[in-house]
């Protein structure tokens, strides 16, 4: 037997989890017994009597925490210490048997009284039913599923409203509650910026920008894409605003959506007056007037929304990035006369929107599967024409298959196809990191990028590929590694969704005028 000890100066742990550590440590391989106590004379005396007082423990002060493990001979004490350290940072278990699984929400909720939120990702036929069960059992809901009838959505949201619960979704892909990212979310710093969003990737982008500016997120409440429609009437966004208004940890509120139905917009903006905190509004492609009249801060884009929120809600100074025009000129110089169009191949709906709206500032000749203008609407299986922006996350593409953030195959094929088009000047792509996303979105795309560039090179063209990586330094894979891999493959990397749009717009302007 030998003694392994850790002395922790000024501990960080609650006593309940500490005691759980001594139980857990007793269960580690090679540990005969373990003891967690303060370094008082009496406790050291007990250890001395048991012959376990090492010099290190002898030196522990009364305010220090001693963790003592007696290990069997031949045990790798470093491994034991590492395992104990790991226990220290892990949360205490809820206790009881670990392998219990439940069939129904009701059974789980009954057996786990501390449960407070259900994440529901089942077929739309059953999703509403499960969400109702969750609400009836007092759980907040994040309803990831889509294809839930709108009538059911309204009923669920009304029920949640009456019970004072969050009903996020349906078709809610992103939320961060109590600093825990749910479904598709990025690892961002905790902080005081609260977000209520009807747009998944839009809210991911704003949260990532807020993080990049040095601030953090208090809560990110996803409302589901239809919340601001006439039928649903913004029930969740209004409840979300009120919840964040009442949340002492939130200093500023950001609202994100496509432009809402007019009557709903009015109702939502009316909440700004009573929120008692600054409210930043980014309604993609929406108008400034109504927002300002309601006392809100109008944001022109995702980066602007993040910058304003950080300025208004924290003491950080935040400045938006500037477009590098020299870089654009260098690219344009390499393009042939025939190369006139931008093609955007996106995973994120709001990222598609933001880039598309940037071009729409200059020309109406922009085609997309998510165009509001029916004359410029392009179906998923049609070839691109003029400036084309495709959202591969739209139902028309996903129909039956996983989201492109998980399954990139369709987009890879399209990338190669676009490279064959001699009129293409630039291909713009997004790469989304974070919880729920593909484990290496850049890596999986690199072969297709190489193939696309080869096709263009064989035809004597320079093909400009622009990539934006949505992620943070806390995400896995790490943002910097993904960017480096793209740059090594000759891809121009942009710094934000907003810059991506501006970059595409600047090139489009030059090649169209050329």
């Amino acid at each position, binding site marked *: 037997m030998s003694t392994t000890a850790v002395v922790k100066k000024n501990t960080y742990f609650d006593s309940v989890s500490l005691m759980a550590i001594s139980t857990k440590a007793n269960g580690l391989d090679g540990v005969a017994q373990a003891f967690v106590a303060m370094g008082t004379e009496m406790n050291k005396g007990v250890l001395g009597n048991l012959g376990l007082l090492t010099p290190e423990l002898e030196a522990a002060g009364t305010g220090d925490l001693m963790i003592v493990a007696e290990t069997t001979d031949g045990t790798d004490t470093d491994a034991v210490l590492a395992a104990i350290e790991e226990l220290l940072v*892990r*949360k205490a278990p*809820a206790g009881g048997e670990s392998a*219990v*699984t*439940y*069939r*129904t*929400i*009701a*059974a*789980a*909720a009954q057996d*786990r009284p*501390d*449960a*407070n*939120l*259900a*994440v*529901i*990702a*089942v*077929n739309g*036929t*059953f999703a509403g*039913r*499960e969400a*109702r069960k*969750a609400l009836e059992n007092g*759980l*907040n809901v994040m309803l*990831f*599923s889509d294809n839930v009838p709108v009538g059911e959505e309204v009923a669920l949201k009304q029920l949640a409203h009456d*019970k*004072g*619960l*969050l009903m996020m979704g349906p078709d809610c892909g992103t939320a961060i*509650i*109590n*600093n*825990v*990212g*749910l*479904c598709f979310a990025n*690892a961002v710093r905790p902080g005081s910026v609260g977000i209520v969003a009807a747009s998944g990737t839009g809210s991911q982008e704003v949260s990532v920008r807020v993080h990049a500016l040095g601030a953090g997120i208090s*809560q990110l409440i996803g409302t589901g894409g239809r919340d601001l429609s006439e039928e649903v009437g913004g029930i969740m966004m209004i*409840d979300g605003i*009120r*919840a964040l208004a*009442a*949340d002492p*940890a939130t200093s500023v509120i950001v609202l994100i959506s496509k432009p809402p139905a007019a009557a709903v917009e009015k109702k939502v903006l009316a909440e700004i007056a009573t929120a008692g905190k600054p409210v930043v509004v980014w309604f993609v492609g929406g108008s400034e007037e109504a927002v300002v009249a309601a006392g809100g801060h109008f944001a022109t884009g995702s980066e602007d929304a993040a910058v304003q929120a950080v300025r208004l809600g924290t003491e950080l100074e935040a400045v938006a990035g500037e477009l590098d025009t020299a870089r654009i000129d260098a690219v344009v110089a390499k393009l042939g006369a025939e190369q006139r169009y931008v093609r955007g191949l996106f995973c994120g709906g709001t990222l598609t929107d933001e880039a598309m709206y940037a071009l729409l500032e200059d020309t109406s000749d922009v085609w997309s599967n998510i165009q509001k203008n029916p004359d410029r609407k392009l179906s998923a299986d049609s070839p691109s024409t003029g400036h084309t922006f495709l959202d591969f996350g739209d139902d028309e593409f996903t129909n039956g298959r996983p989201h492109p953030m998980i399954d990139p195959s369709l987009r890879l094929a399209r990338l190669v196809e676009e490279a064959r088009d001699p009129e293409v000047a630039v291909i713009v792509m997004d790469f989304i990191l974070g*919880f*729920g996303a593909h484990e290496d979105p850049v890596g999986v795309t690199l072969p297709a990028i190489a193939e696309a560039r080869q096709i263009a090179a064989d035809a004597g063209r320079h093909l400009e590929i622009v990539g934006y990586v949505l992620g943070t330094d806390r995400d896995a894979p790490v943002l910097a590694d993904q960017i480096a891999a793209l740059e090594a493959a000759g891809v121009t990397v942009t710094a934000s969704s907003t810059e991506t749009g501006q970059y595409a717009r600047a090139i489009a302007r030059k090649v169209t005028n050329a």
Partner: protein
Amino acid sequence: MSTTNSLFSSDLNVVNVGLAMFEDDIAAQGAEVTTLDWTPPAGGKPEVLAALDALGDLEVAQKIEAANAEAVERIANSQPMLVGFGRALDVVPGMTPTTILHSGPPITWDRMNGPMQGAVTGALVFEGLAKDLDEAAALAASGEITFSPCHEHDAVGSMAGVTSASMYMHIVRNETHGNYAYTNLSEQMAKILRMGANDGSVVERLVWMRDVLGPMLKEAMEIGGPIDLRLMLAQALHMGDECHNRNNAGTLLLQQALAPSLLQTSFTTEQKKQVFDFIASSDYFSGPTWMATAKAALDAAHGIENSTVVTTMARNGVEFGIRVSGLAGNQWFTGPAGTVVGPMFAGYKPEDSGRDIGDSAITETYGFGGFTMSAAPAIVALVGGTVQEAMAYTREMGEITTSQNPNVTIPALDFQGIPTGIDVRKVLDTGILPIINTAIAHKDAGIGMIGAGVVNPPVEAFEKAAAALAEVIG
């Protein structure tokens, strides 16, 4: 929004439904998360879902909750007492000399399986209605015999459940609610009428039971007075029985209670020794007793308006039928009887098995038997499986029942009450079917028991019941 703000100030604790990949992400961020073992409710069948939704409507659900609470209260507070023994003709309501009761939902002679036909013909010979088995078969097919389910006569019957006029029955009175329940005596050995055996030795034993065993038990009860069966059932569970397939302790307890009175009866010592030897010849002696105990309690809970609690599960070898409290009277909901899976006696193969048969699933309907395997770890050898599985069965049955019976408890689960009041809605919601411990009879007439194992009811029975309930309640 006070509730939401209390969410913000609590640790996030997530129930994850559908996609397991979200669990890892949430757990990696330090939040508690449990992922459901989720399957589409009601097997995803739209018409069943519609029925469940109708029953899930808030106002309807409240009525159901109240009715179910009453149903399980009536089951749990029932105090079945063994008060005597008597001939079926004398005690069972609606019994006539030419009536044959059988197990499970109603069935006609021509649809009966081998073991049940074997038992019927044996019983007709025993009653002297036919001189041999061939004549008996002709008589059975003639339409002169009335066939009727035991369950429709306040009775239950083990395996084929075949009960004829002069067979001796347990008489069980529900002290709390005043109703009675009846069941046949155990024939003990493997080659017996209830398993479909019907040769001379079987009939000879039935005659002895009619002339010696039955009358002696009757007299003993008159001497000794009523026996509290719920108390004895609870004791037997504490002694390692599940009281369906394992009755070692229950039989000892019952014999212990009867012995002094049996000794005082007017029979000869030789006859008394025969009776004691007979009881000692098989642990199953008390098996029917517990069935009648359960039947007495469950009948008291039948016919409560708006209740979705199952009050009967029974099989006739062809169909599995259930009855539900809120659908009063003899409304049966059926599906095909399953095949029992489990170890078989040497020399038999799975294809020899007859299909699931008998009223003994009344024990699971009450909450013991398969539901209480956690009380009887020794049973796992008989029905196959591990002790851990036995524990898990009870926990799982908790998910489809209404509450626990505090009067009958399981020591190994910290004296948790047995799962009580199978709820049709929960069975369909969870996709968990009741688990039943049972014996396996040979598929052909005349052979008998060839093994034991576990079986589930067909989900169709519950689907049909839900549709009927939705029509009545929703």
